[in-house]
């Protein structure tokens, strides 16, 4: 059993609890134990905090990392936004002495000190890593193959970009999450401009909603063209943007897409036999039923 401190973030636990539930359950089936990270907070939102003052962003993220350092466990998480904050700050503080000292100066006040003793992982990369889990193991864990479904993948920006500060290689034509989808028995589908941003990041969703959902709408057009049954991602914030975004698109632009959007953990849950209720799919703004009909 590989054990990790499970960093929840905000949107998974507070908007899509199904992501949280499925993440814990499915990965347990795959030999990965996700432990509560007591007292963790918002990562904090890289757009909002990073834009106002990077130093606060460093310090707040560091606090979350230190909770894991105290647990002596690496961090696993399921949100790209969180990944940017927690992973990137962790790496930056390890690398840059002066940044580290600055942050520790702040954290002194709450008796904390960044030592850089843990690493940060996105659950998706752990699932893909044969050392930890790997495609085959996922395939073996499947009880309800998602056969006959066409699923497109949205990677999300902050997981893999900027590539120089990540370890996933090129960000132009990645395919590893498609492999994870194929492992569930579904057919992964390529579509135009796959790596285009969901539109939510950088505080834009809050700053200029129509601008932000117009980007989402462009993705929807490309997805429609590829005739997919569902879109999957590994980021609840992207999920929020695609899921609630479709409702907003309908309100503002009068276009109805009705494309089910599921976090990879939710898909994995379904494939491992979890029921839609256990995944709280009813909380999704866009009904997942058309997709479920194909699966169940």
């Amino acid at each position, binding site marked *: 059993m590989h054990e990790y401190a499970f960093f929840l973030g905000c949107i998974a636990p507070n908007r899509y609890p199904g992501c949280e539930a499925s993440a814990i359950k499915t990965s347990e089936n795959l030999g990965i134990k996700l432990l509560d990270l007591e007292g963790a907070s918002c990562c904090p939102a890289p757009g909002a905090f990073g834009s106002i003052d990077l130093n606060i962003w460093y310090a707040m993220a560091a606090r979350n990392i230190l909770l894991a350092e105290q647990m002596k466990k690496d961090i696993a998480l399921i949100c790209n936004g969180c990944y940017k904050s927690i992973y990137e700050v962790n790496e930056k503080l390890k690398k840059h002495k002066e940044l580290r000292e600055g942050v520790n100066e702040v954290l002194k006040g709450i008796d904390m000190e960044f030592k850089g003793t843990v690493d940060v992982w996105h659950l998706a990369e752990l699932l893909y890593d044969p050392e930890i889990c790997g495609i085959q193991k996922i395939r073996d864990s499947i009880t309800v193959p998602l056969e006959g479904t066409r699923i497109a993948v949205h990677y999300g920006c902050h997981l893999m970009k900027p590539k120089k500060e990540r370890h996933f290689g090129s960000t*132009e034509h990645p395919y590893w999450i498609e492999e994870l989808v194929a492992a569930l028995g579904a057919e992964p589908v390529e579509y*135009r401009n796959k790596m285009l941003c969901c539109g939510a990041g950088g505080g834009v969703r809050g700053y200029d909603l129509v601008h932000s959902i117009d980007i989402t709408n462009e993705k929807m057009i490309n997805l429609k063209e590829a005739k997919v049954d569902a879109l999957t991602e590994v980021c609840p914030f992207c999920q929020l943007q695609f899921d609630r975004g479709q409702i907003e698109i309908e309100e503002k632009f009068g276009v109805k897409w009705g494309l089910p959007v599921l976090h990879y953990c939710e898909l994995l849950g379904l494939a491992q036999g979890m029921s839609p209720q256990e995944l709280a799919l009813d909380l999704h703004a866009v009904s997942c039923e058309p997709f479920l009909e194909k699966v169940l």
Partner: protein
Amino acid sequence: MAEKKTKKETAPKKKEATKAAAKAAPAASKAPAKEQKEARIGVFICHCGTNIAGSIDIEDVQEYAKTLPAVAFADNYQYMCSTPGQGKIKDAIKEHNLTGVVVAACSPRLHEPTFRTTTKEGGLNPFRFEMANIREQGSWVHMHDREGGTDKAKDAIRIAVAKASLLEDLIPKTVPVEHTAMVVGAGIAGMQAALDLANAGIKTYLIEKNPTIGGRMSQLDKTFPTLDCSQCILTPKMVDVGRAENIELMTCAEVEDVEGYIGNFDVTIRRKARGVLTTAEAEAKGIVGGGCNGCGDCENVCPVIKPNPFEMGMKPRKAIYIYHPQVVPLLYTIDWDSCIKCGLCVDICGDKKAIDLEMQDELVKVKVGTAILATGYDLFEIEKKDEWGYKKYENVVTSLEFERLICASGPTGGHMVRPSDGETPKKVAFLLCAGSRDNTGIGKPYCSRFCCMYSLKHAHQLIEKIPGVQPYLFYMDIRSNGKMYEEFYYRIQDEGAKFMRGRVANVLEDPVTKNLIINAEDTLLNRPINLEVDMVVLATAVQPSMEAERTRKLFGVSRSMDGWLLEAHPKLNPCGTTTAGVFLAGVCQAPKDIPDTVASAEAAASAASIPIHKGEVELEPYFAQCIEEKCAGCGMCVNLCPYQALALVEKDGRKVMEVTEAKCKGCGTCGGFCPGGAIWMQHFATPQIIAQIDAFLLGGAK
């Protein structure tokens, strides 16, 4: 104590001097006389305008120099290398009857030869000269630290004086130069260089790794800005090379090993088994009227099909093949990796008996006086910049693939079609600086220099061939600096090519039509562009050919940081290298278009012919000498020598080391090691170097 050492150790030098006396009377006759005479050094400090004087206090330095032991005279001048400057030195040598000269100026790598001649003209042995580098390693690197720079200059002079007072007469060794040359690589650069050398009456070995000569130029369709057909102007030269009596052409050949030095390089060449006999080779084997006549029957019967590299893999070839109809020499070649030795070709070839499926590589040794490297370039692996989708999207091609696609002798017979469906493209985007001017660590930081111009040419060729075609050139800057180049740019613009000032961010493919969508910004309109085209041509960056690295090491040539071969001086000696007798031609030194390549080839040829026509070269006499009374005959130095110049010999009853001067290059590896201090490195002798160290740290050799 340094004194004492010299006294003792100069002993063998007497021998050397007298030995020399036999060779060169005038210089040597002085040598013994000078022996005991105590050192009188003249120091000459150069202002180099303000280059040195600007950040170093010349007066101060000169006053200091006067106080140094053994300094008999000190002077300064605006430009020491000027005629009056050199005059000052010559006069001073006589007036103050100097035994050595120190010039404090620029780098010895620049002006040592100049001042050695001056010293000689002043009546001293040229090797009684030492240079103090107070510019490149002084004023220029301490421009804002006058005090520090001045102190450093004083020390540099003190160190130089210490050495100068221990310098001795040396007689350079002159060696005969082999009346032959070698050119490695038979692209346009190598061919031109070889032709020039041959026409100058020098026997030249032309080594080419491929089965035919012609190189990259033979793959091109037309050439800018004149638009003459590349093959049409190239093939006559290829034929000349094939015909030239003075050129010994070796195709399918590689340099295996290089020994020796300028005038006398011993080069081993690997002639790769071609599997096919020339008529000459056949005759040698007693096969009358046999050997390959290029009839091509073998190709017709060969069952194996492989992509033809000459056509960038866009056309098939057999396991026994020629690149294209105009190859020189017209000889078929077997690709051993794909040949299944079925023997059909042997049968069809019949009595000509030209094909030998058991042929082995052979090693040939040749001796040459000078060598020219013309190893050319390859395309950068542009798929590494995967935002442009090369090797992912069928209709994204490189510029060389485009050349073949539009060439009448190419895979499509010159009908410009796109790979995915053979349709004629109506909209084509050219991406300039594809992989060039790239500081990400993936691409190349330099400008590949000829892409702008050939892309203009490509646009013209499209407009000429396809009515109603629309070429788009996505560029950052159009670099058309050459004779009639800017005019060519004007012409292509007039012909209707559209120039979009913006670098392409990424290329997407329409999954159905296989058309390509260009994402760029029109930085002049300040608007993003979303342009759908039928085909994308990447003006791909160039990089040194794979062979270049191996070859340069064999010839002891250095490399610039960007990977191209390093010239002796970027401005004043662009063809030479730091290895005497080895020269560079064409793109192997840096990206060049055809005119520049040919020019550099002719330059290299003339440079390479000089020592050959002179017939002899002087070697700097930095040879190792054995101080026999100290030599214990342990022989450790013998194995250290990279040139097998040392040997143990029997001399009056004991083993001592002996140096073959012709082989010794003066690296001093032996001298640096000899446990008994029995090796005297001429001009870099232990007492001389120790004196320099003492001078620096103890302030003066005395």
